[in-house]
């Protein structure tokens, strides 16, 4: 982005532009180089692991070879169960994430905008926050059974707190000086919220969303470990019960991949929404 700005502000001289273009490809190449460097050690480790497994240093019933794990994933993909498990887990995280975010946005805006609401709700929410969220699990299961509602609720609880806290601090932290500028232009309260406070609180809100999503993935594991007949968390339990470590590790790897993928999507949104920021997305 910075590059683009420089371009528009320089006097347009053609050889200067080509110089810049050269700079850009160079930078892309550097990105590739960084990727390459970063993957050397993981690839080497996987290779060593594969070799050690093949010659029998790691017993297969404890740590199967990477190729075995890949084969497990491939088989599940072939008989279709893989998509089923991934689908249901992603679905749970997504629904929990949406509900948790909605609740956080409603309560967070109230608390952020109204002093009275802050005095009313915030102490209670802070008190609830100090309870480790997983401690709710038995209660939710007792209330809602072992089906979807209790799982989604758990995930939503996990997502709620980071989103709520970041939104509130974003709203209350808006620079008063900018609000004064808005007032000088005769904006009413609603316009002030829409045109000044919300955009100013957006970065903090997006940080909340990303850490909320991370917690969502953590909580889906817990929820599915409690009892489920489908999902990646169920694969973990299944692998444990059938003594097949390759299923467990396959599930872990899949968690890592879709977790990273969903975070990447949010990061992309963040990058687009916060183009104006000085320090672009700190990963």
């Amino acid at each position: 982005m910075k590059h683009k700005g420089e371009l528009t502000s320089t006097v347009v001289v053609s050889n200067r532009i080509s110089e810049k273009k050269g700079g850009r490809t160079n930078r892309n190449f550097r990105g590739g180089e960084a990727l390459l460097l970063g993957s050397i050690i993981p690839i080497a480790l996987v290779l060593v692991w594969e070799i050690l497994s093949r010659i029998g240093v790691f017993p297969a019933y404890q740590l199967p070879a990477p190729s075995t794990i890949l084969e497990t994933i491939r088989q599940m993909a072939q008989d279709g169960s893989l998509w089923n498990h991934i689908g249901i887990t992603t679905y749970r995280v997504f629904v929990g994430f949406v509900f948790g975010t909605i609740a956080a946005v409603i309560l967070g805006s109230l608390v952020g905008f109204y002093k009275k609401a802050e005095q009313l709700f915030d102490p209670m929410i802070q008190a609830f926050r100090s309870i480790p969220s997983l401690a709710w699990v038995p209660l939710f299961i007792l209330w809602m059974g072992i089906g979807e509602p209790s799982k989604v609720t758990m995930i939503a609880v996990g997502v709620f707190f980071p989103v709520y806290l970041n939104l509130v601090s974003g709203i209350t932290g808006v620079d008063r000086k900018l609000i004064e500028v808005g007032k000088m232009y005769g904006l009413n309260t609603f316009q002030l919220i829409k045109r000044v406070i919300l955009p100013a609180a957006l970065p903090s809100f997006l940080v909340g969303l990303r850490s909320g999503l991370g917690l969502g993935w953590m909580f889906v594991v817990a929820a599915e470990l409690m009892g489920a007949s489908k999902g990646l968390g169920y694969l973990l339990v299944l692998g444990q019960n059938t003594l097949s470590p390759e299923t467990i590790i396959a599930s872990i790897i899949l968690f890592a991949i879709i977790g990273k993928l969903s975070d990447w999507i949010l990061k992309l949104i963040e990058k687009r929404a916060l183009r104006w920021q000085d320090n672009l997305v700190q990963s």
Partner: protein
Amino acid sequence: MSLEVRNVSRSFDGKKAVNNISFFAEPGEIIGILGTSGCGKSTILRAISGLDSGYDGDIAINGNVEKEIQDTTGFIFQEPRLFPWLTVLDNVTFGLKGDKDDKITSAKAYLKNVGLEESGGLYPRQLSGGMAQRVAIARALVTSPEILLLDEPFSALDAFTKMQLQDLLLDVWRAYQSTIILVTHDIDEALYLCDRIIILRGQPGELHKEIKIEEPRPRDRASKQLAAHKAEILESLDLNLKTS
């Protein structure tokens, strides 16, 4: 528009910050407010703007006593205060109402006035300090404020940019005949720009002296008359002399 400040006092937590200030600005007049730090210059400006309504006394615009924020009043703050999420162009159109194309056209005209017609697509983080301040000036001027309040608008700039922007302010003033209240620490700036200079003194700040600068514009920054005024102002600001 004329502006009248009548017996304005302002206390913070029972402690007086300014005491009984009165002055009158003719339509199209440029008034400078000078005074040592903490004597209440910003406080008066905020009262006039309507951002602060906790003062005693009256402020009348065109003869009407008002406490609310007027949308005919523009305020250029000491810092640029640009919205970081808006481009330069969007920052300038921020306070405009009406048709989008019209807004963009007039914003572009003002950006050109401040010498930034090329920079409309940049974000504030990409601007230098002086550019940002010029954007803030364009943003305040584009709404054609009939009263323009400036709180040390050029104080953070280097001498050269400062002089450029002072001349720009005079150009704009000539074109739109705004009434301008300029708070400044810089005596030379006040002498160069103002029709009248009001000197505040003491804590709480009180009106100490009004000096009329008759020199025709364009003024010579180094002229003898201005130097004489400068000596007079320095003398009145000197807190060791007893007030009379």
